[in-house]
């Protein structure tokens, strides 16, 4: 786990491209890489698949951290080149990866927002909704990262993206997050699982 997140970060943090970037731009880029790494850990924490950690508590803190990383990423890019970020946020960018990143950003804010008001939500609504948004986050982030020619190494970037996709699907499939939806519509024929 440390290697899966640490190696891509280390490669990006030592990229030759950094020589020609200002500190704000460098921090913005690394915040994006770190956010991708957070996506690998979050599903495991959410369902206590990591030994020795109080998963749910860590999941909430790291979720807040993810929102912060996204804000640092976007703010840093904005400071570096305002028109490029405005283009991205308004979906008028010439670079296709921008739209994927912005979609993932809003989905992440949505997922975090749902978590923040979770106690006021029905559990039957929260889990499928949170999970659906996370699938958008993961898909959008992976496409965003893979389309970018930047500081990340090709091998470590693909490896981390594939891991994030695999772990997300594994956890989502294992937890059958869509079951409450089926149950509500009366189509679920599976017995209730213990949470």
């Amino acid at each position, binding site marked *: 786990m440390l290697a899966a997140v640490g190696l891509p970060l280390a490669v990006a943090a030592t990229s030759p491209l950094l020589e*020609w970037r200002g500190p704000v731009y460098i921090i913005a880029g690394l915040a994006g890489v770190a956010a991708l790494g957070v996506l690998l850990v979050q599903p495991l924490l959410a369902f206590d698949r990591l030994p020795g950690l109080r998963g749910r508590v860590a999941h909430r803190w790291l979720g807040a951290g993810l929102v912060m990383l996204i804000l640092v990423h976007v703010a840093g890019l904005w400071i570096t*080149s305002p028109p490029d970020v405005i283009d991205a946020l308004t979906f008028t960018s010439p670079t296709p990866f921008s739209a994927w990143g912005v979609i993932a950003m809003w989905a992440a804010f949505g997922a975090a927002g749902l978590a923040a008001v979770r106690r006021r939500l029905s559990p039957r609504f929260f889990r499928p909704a949170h999970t659906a948004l996370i699938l958008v986050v993961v898909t959008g982030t992976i*496409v965003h990262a893979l389309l970018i020619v930047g500081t990340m190494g090709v091998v470590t970037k693909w490896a981390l993206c594939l891991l994030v996709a695999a772990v997300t699907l594994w956890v989502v499939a294992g937890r059958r997050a869509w079951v409450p939806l089926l149950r509500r519509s009366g189509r679920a024929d599976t017995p209730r699982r213990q949470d």
Partner: protein
Amino acid sequence: MPTFPRRTLLIGAAAALAAPVLFRPARAQGLAPTPTMRGGANNYRPGAPIVERIGGGGFLMTGSVRRAGDGAPLAGRRIQVWAHTTEGHERDARSHGATLTDAEGRFALDMPQIVPAFGQPHGHLAYDSDYDDGGFRTVFLRPIMGSPGDRTLDVAFVLEPA
């Protein structure tokens, strides 16, 4: 929301880089004018000086400027170039410079090596009618290099009479 084919994943960054510049023919006959590209004017600093080269040089931005319709080469047209290079960000004044086309409508400007920034190794070029008396419409281009290691980039302008 625009739809993106899933095969984008497989083709990856190479496809984005290799994506050809799309020229939409605006006229049924003759050479169609080059449309301004999305993001082409980003970080533009109008009125950069005409220079022999930008900074220390090492990367060659070349191109042609022709008239829409008959394709006649346009001499003495001012083309401004800027990019994120080994010597500065796009917004930095030192990253900007301009040059004039020769009798064949060609231009060439030595500049620092362009490096990938904001996800793609790309340059910016402008034909700005405010700095030219020739009566053609302003065009901003944002060409993408085929590879981050390229040492040159050739860009075609086809200008539309104003």
